[in-house]
């Protein structure tokens, strides 16, 4: 086997440009991918990211008067780009078949199903009408459709049936490569599952290779082994499906995951902010620049290339994927009491990435607060190292800057001074780091107080903290830590004193920051209901050890450690 033949399909630098519209739209922009035999590759992305254009480009269905296709498509070692239509026809249907996106207009409304499904057979094989009919019956049976439907017109069929017809049509000539474009859109769950099962069993039976295009991550998770994320005609992330869904490394992929309810049903839904950029716009930088929550200077000027960041894992990002804000390694802390040593934290390691909400759960006395205090440098660790944005934390540099790391303490009565006024408490970090003038500081005070839903009138600002309720003081403390616009917030039971409505509003505000600005949070709590709602990842702490860590849907649905199981059981007993 030569190098080129190792893959069934190899695409190099494929570009599809629709140049008959003004301005020309570059729908696919330098996509390269390889597909082995019997493999199933998924392509995900928002609508308009070029997924379907890629499919059309591969099958050679983009005509010269619509747009141009450049690059190389090697099918079994043979370049299809530039082949004349007559030669392409030999490949189409017999070698590469396309299951079109389901809609009425894909099927010819004046042709009966029999004629539609039989059409490729008629063009590719020399068969008599009776033989064709026989094949059509077989095909329809194969896709689980009653053969008598072949005498009806497309509009008389339901959506699920039409999808089966499209699959039958694509499979009519025994193709080696099946490109499936959005197989389940607009289908009810029942027919959706049937189609998925059908595709799965057909692939097993017929052994075709599949390229699955979908924005439904559930479908991707079920059918594919590898997945690629496409944005603005470019591949931004590629990897094994299970890995990518568990641990996305590009902000865009994570955005897609956060927008999908079928991955973890309890979590809140958050779309990706902003509009997809116009791919044709002549910007030299990263296409995702405008919507990215960690964009830097270099991102707007040079285009990131798809690079390996791990085994079977590629990301196109100047920052090597989602940034790691905080990394703690081997944190140890022992409290020496009179006649015993209390090991509060034993060898804890943790990692917080940009835009992640991590819940640290565990019973009281499991060392959660100690760990939090160590992370921000309030306590000294006996051993271990802490890195903020890959720089070792020493002294206070990570907490005393704008956009750094901040902590909110558990007890609001102790966290705010009785003797200071609200305005003084909230302004304190800015006073200490000598940021801006008096007016600017006051404006910032107003901004953060509004964020935590506190009044901003002079009367309230001049009140002493002594005269505030517990919930108000907690919010004042939260406002104080938000005033430096932290990138990472370590929140120790911050909502314990708040009423449900304020708590909900505050958490939504923080989640909003997370989605817009790549704000990350270590949320320490015993409230597992809340953790399940907001957390992307969960760390479970038990007697000073982090006993389990992982993506929240895995921890909450399939806890592995006995303590986690017990914790979840106790917390959710009344509800489930």
């Amino acid at each position, binding site marked *: 086997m030569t190098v080129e033949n190792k893959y069934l399909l190899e695409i190099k630098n494929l570009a599809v440009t629709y140049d008959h519209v003004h301005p020309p739209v570059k729908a696919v922009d330098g996509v390269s991918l390889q597909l082995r035999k019997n493999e199933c590759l998924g392509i995900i992305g928002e609508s308009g990211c070029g997924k379907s254009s890629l499919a059309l480009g591969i099958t050679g269905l983009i005509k010269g008067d619509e747009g141009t296709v450049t690059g190389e498509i090697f099918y079994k070692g043979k370049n299809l780009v530039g082949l004349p239509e007559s030669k392409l026809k030999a490949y189409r249907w017999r070698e590469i078949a396309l299951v079109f996106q389901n809609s009425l207009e894909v099927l010819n409304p004046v042709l009966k199903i029999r004629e539609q499904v039989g059409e490729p057979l008629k063009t590719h094989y020399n068969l008599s009408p009776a033989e064709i009919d026989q094949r059509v019956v077989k095909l329809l049976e194969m896709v689980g459709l009653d053969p008598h439907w072949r005498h009806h017109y497309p509009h008389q069929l339901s959506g699920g049936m039409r999808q089966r017809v499209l699959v039958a049509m694509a499979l009519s000539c025994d193709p080696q490569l099946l490109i499936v474009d959005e197989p389940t859109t607009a289908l009810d769950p029942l027919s959706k599952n049937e189609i998925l099962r059908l595709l799965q069993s057909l692939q097993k039976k017929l052994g075709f290779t599949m390229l699955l295009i979908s924005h439904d991550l559930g479908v991707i998770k079920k059918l594919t082994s590898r997945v690629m994320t496409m944005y603005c005609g470019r591949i931004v992330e590629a990897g094994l499906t299970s890995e990518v869904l568990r641990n996305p490394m590009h902000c865009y992929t994570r955005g897609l995951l956060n927008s999908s309810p079928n991955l973890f049903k309890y979590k809140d839904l958050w779309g990706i902010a902003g509009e997809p950029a116009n791919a044709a716009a002549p910007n030299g930088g990263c296409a995702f620049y405008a919507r990215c929550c960690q964009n830097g200077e270099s991102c707007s000027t040079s285009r990131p290339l798809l690079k390996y960041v791990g085994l079977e894992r590629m990301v196109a990002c100047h920052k090597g994927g989602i940034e790691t804000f905080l990394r703690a390694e081997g944190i140890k802390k022992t409290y020496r009491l009179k006649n015993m040593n209390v090991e509060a934290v034993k060898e804890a390691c943790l990692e917080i990435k940009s835009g992640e909400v991590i819940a640290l759960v565990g019973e009281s006395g499991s060392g959660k607060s100690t760990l939090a*205090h160590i992370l*921000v*440098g*309030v306590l000294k660790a006996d051993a271990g190292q802490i890195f903020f944005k890959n720089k070792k934390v020493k002294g*206070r540099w990570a*907490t*005393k800057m704008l956009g750094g790391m*901040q*902590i909110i*303490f*558990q*007890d609001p009565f*102790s*966290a*705010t*001074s009785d*003797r*200071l006024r609200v305005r003084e*408490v909230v302004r*304190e*970090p800015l006073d*200490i*780091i000598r940021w801006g003038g008096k007016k600017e500081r006051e404006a910032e005070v107003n901004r953060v107080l509004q964020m935590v839903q506190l009044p901003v009138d002079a009367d309230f600002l001049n009140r002493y903290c002594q005269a505030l309720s517990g919930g108000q003081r907690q919010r004042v*403390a939260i406002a*104080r*830590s938000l005033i*430096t616009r932290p990138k990472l917030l370590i929140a120790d039971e911050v909502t314990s004193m708040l009423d449900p409505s304020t708590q909900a509003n505050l958490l939504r505000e923080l989640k909003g920051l997370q989605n817009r600005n790549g704000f990350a949070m270590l949320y320490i709590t015993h409230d597992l209901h809340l953790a399940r709602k907001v957390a992307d990842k969960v760390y479970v702490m038990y007697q000073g050890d982090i006993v389990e860590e992982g993506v929240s849907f895995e921890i909450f649905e399939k806890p592995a450690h006995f303590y986690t199981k017990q914790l979840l059981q106790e917390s959710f007993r009344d509800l489930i």
Partner: protein
Amino acid sequence: MAGTYASLQKLLKKCREFSLLGKISLLIILLIFLAAVWAPYISLHSHKISSGPALLPPGKGHPLGTDDLGIDLWAQLCHGARISLIVGFGTAFLAALGGGLVGIIAGYAGGWVDKVIMRLIDIMIVLPDFPLMIVLAAFLGPSVLNIIIVLALFSWVFPARIVRAQILMLKEHSFIKAAETYGAGAWYLLWKHFLPAVFPLMAVNMIRQTGRAIVSEAGLSFLGLGDPTSKSWGLIINHATSFRGIYFTEFWKWWLLYPWLALTLIVLSLAFISRELERIVNPRL
């Protein structure tokens, strides 16, 4: 600084909450203070030179009588109030400020600094202070400033201990830890958090120290270690008691009684005020 100012204002406001005894005490202190300030104007005669016959009982011209040299006692008392108040408040201020600072440093720094300071305080407490004061006063020579320094040297330990305890408690509060994470230095914490928090305590302590200092000064003066050129109350008593056979005569009824009365009044008033302030500042007491 603003915090300290605010506390001061609050303290003044709190004075209105004083009991009757407290208000009377405050009035007495105020009167003595005014007498000291206007001493040259309200005393009819000189407090240094003889202005009439010796040992005149209280009466016309000499409201409180005269001493053995014929110097007016009222004038002496008015001028003596100056010395007493200066010594009292000066010592208290110096002791409370110094002691407070030492306490803050010990409490905040902790570690060996704290240990050294605490041992020093322990030593100061067990030393018999009055004899040592006498020795020191004799060594340094008699002057008002020296007396203030000597007295302050022996009275800073109590404010230091109280303030240190308060700081140790305060240090554990998360708002201090939060301020530290924002990069606050010791100076910032001192002005913004520690001083306002310990100021009421220091103020109460200061007033108590004032009373102590006034008595001590009187004691030193009585022993003849005061500034002989300045007629403080203790010195008047010293003169009176050194008058041979004063107890066999009637002279003590004014010569000794009035300075004693002034001394007792001011010390009692200060004690009442400090108790009153303590009650207000620390409601749990």
